[in-house]
């Protein structure tokens, strides 16, 4: 759970450092040390090894109905998209994908809205109990999800929220990391900006909406990406809270067809379908970080 937060910082730090590293590299090339070309060899081998499971997944999905024969199965001669149409054609998978999309997108929007509101208050407002409440929130990150799983299940079932979308989404909105990151980011926004808006007669909601929110765009993009991926890949809470098969999210549904007697190619095709949005979001994230570096270079 704590993973996304630190990742952001790391990536931002490492990319912020990048220009210096590049200039050092250039100096090196001009001067004494030449970068050895052979370093590409281990990198390529390791990149292939890392990517092998993805390759295997796609290759197996493209050969439905054929017995697996190594190494021939890994270098397919005639491919067929039947497994993909079998996986996508069933109403179930389409429904699961829809559930996953709703779960992820609604959560992203709500987490970003609520976290920016709370982050703004914690960063820029003075009120009784501010530090205590903030640090209690942060401390909840230490509570293992497995301890709260059963109480959450009981609570949501008492509220008749099991097997409903709101019952799935609402408990996951208490996202301490998002609030923490938002507060850190909003603290950096100059007070003068807010004071100036206030002098111009802007109300509190207007200050939040037209001054603070536009400033948080970079962190919104990063956080949004991570919240999306976290929800899209989430497994345990959807597993216990969405009980009937038509309400499964994609990860839970994928696991359920793996447990049934479904052909391997269809399972792999469904797995590949699960992976597509992740890949797209990931590629988007990469681009976002490049832009972040360029922006920090302009300042």
């Amino acid at each position, binding site marked *: 759970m*704590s*993973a996304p937060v630190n*990742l952001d910082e*790391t990536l931002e*730090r*490492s990319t912020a450092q990048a220009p210096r*590293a*590049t200039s*050092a*590299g250039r100096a090196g090339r001009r001067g004494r040390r030449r*970068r050895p070309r052979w*370093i*590409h060899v281990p990198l390529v081998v*390791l990149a292939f090894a*890392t990517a092998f*499971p*993805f390759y295997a*997944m796609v290759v*197996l999905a493209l050969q439905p109905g054929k017995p*697996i024969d190594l190494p021939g199965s*890994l270098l397919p001669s005639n491919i067929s998209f039947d497994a993909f149409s079998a996986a996508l054609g069933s109403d179930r998978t389409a429904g699961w994908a829809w559930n996953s999309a709703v779960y992820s997108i609604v959560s992203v929007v709500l987490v970003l809205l*609520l976290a920016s509101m*709370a982050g703004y*208050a914690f960063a820029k*407002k*003075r*009120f*009784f109990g501010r530090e205590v409440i903030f640090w*209690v*929130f942060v401390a909840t990150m*230490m*509570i*293992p*999800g*497995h*301890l*709260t*799983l*059963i*109480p959450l299940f009981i*609570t949501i079932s008492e509220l008749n929220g099991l097997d409903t979308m709101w019952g799935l989404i609402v*408990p996951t909105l*208490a996202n*301490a990391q998002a609030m923490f990151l938002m507060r850190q980011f909003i603290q950096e926004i100059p007070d003068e900006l807010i004071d100036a808006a206030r002098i111009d007669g802007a109300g*509190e909601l207007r200050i939040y909406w037209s001054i603070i929110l536009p400033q948080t765009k970079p962190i919104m993009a990063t956080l949004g990406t991570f919240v999306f991926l976290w929800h*899209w*890949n989430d*497994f*345990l809470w959807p597993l*216990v809270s969405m009980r009937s098969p038509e309400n499964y999210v994609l*990860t*839970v549904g994928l*696991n359920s067809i*793996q447990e049934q007697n479904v052909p391997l190619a269809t*399972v*792999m095709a469904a*797995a590949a379908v699960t*992976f597509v949005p*992740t890949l797209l979001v990931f590629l988007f994230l*990469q681009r976002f970080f490049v832009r972040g570096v360029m922006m920090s270079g302009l300042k």
Partner: protein
Amino acid sequence: MTVADLRRTRSGTTPQRWWKARGAIIAYAFIAPYVVLFLAFRIGPAIFGTFLSLAEYGLAGDITFVGLDNFSRLFNDPIFWNALKVTVLYTVIAIPLTVAISIGMAVLCNRTLRGMSAYRAVFFLPVVTSSVMSGIVWVWILGEEGPLNWLLTSVGLPAVPWLNHDIVVLLSLAVVSAWTHFGYDMLILLAGMLAIPTEYYEAAEVDGANAWERFRHITLPLLKPALFFVIVLEIIRSFQVFDTIYVMTGGGPVRSSYSLTFMIYDQGFGYFEFGYASAAGVVLLVITLAVSLVQRRLMRGGTT
């Protein structure tokens, strides 16, 4: 007088009570949704879970207080001790594996090279992958007639029962975990390495230090904080491993991968023993808190 001092005196001269300040009321309105969510879905359940560990929960929703019964049952249950053993064993295997791979990859990636961002992107891809997807693919890769065993037998080595042997199964799960996490840990270490001034390496090179000596005497000591962070992160992750076990082994073969988290799930949602499962949950909480506490101590000791 600094800006901070000015601010302090300014706020010091306002004799307004906090609850009367207009800003305060608005601030409370801004944090209200979060407070409600946290009380209902974080703090409340944590307290409720701890209370449940001292109770029995009937299927009709009736709660009977039973004192420490769940804990005495837990500490006399061989399944619990086995789960704890599996968890510790898994942690002991997974951490060195993941950390070693991450350091190696960070060293390899810590250079300017054409195409480096593409390499890093590939190494990072498993991090964003769903654990169910990777579990399914890895079950095939590690299967009895999967590509890994095909590779072993084709070079004349015996096939390994990757998922059907009591210790090997933990190694297999650790490999999957390392594959999933190394890209992330690598980035943290890489950021740590980028923060080391290049002058140190230049000076060492002038003094005639070779690559290994530079790594051993410059990189490693200066990387300690990042390394420490990665290790603590991996400890907590290992103690909370669940998804891959659920997808790949179901706790098997014969409870060989039946971890503490899997026990909580199994007792809770397999047997509907909510009280008993919560007792195991409290044990997990205590372990997590102990790890964080030790981390704090060591961090403080390291900085002074």
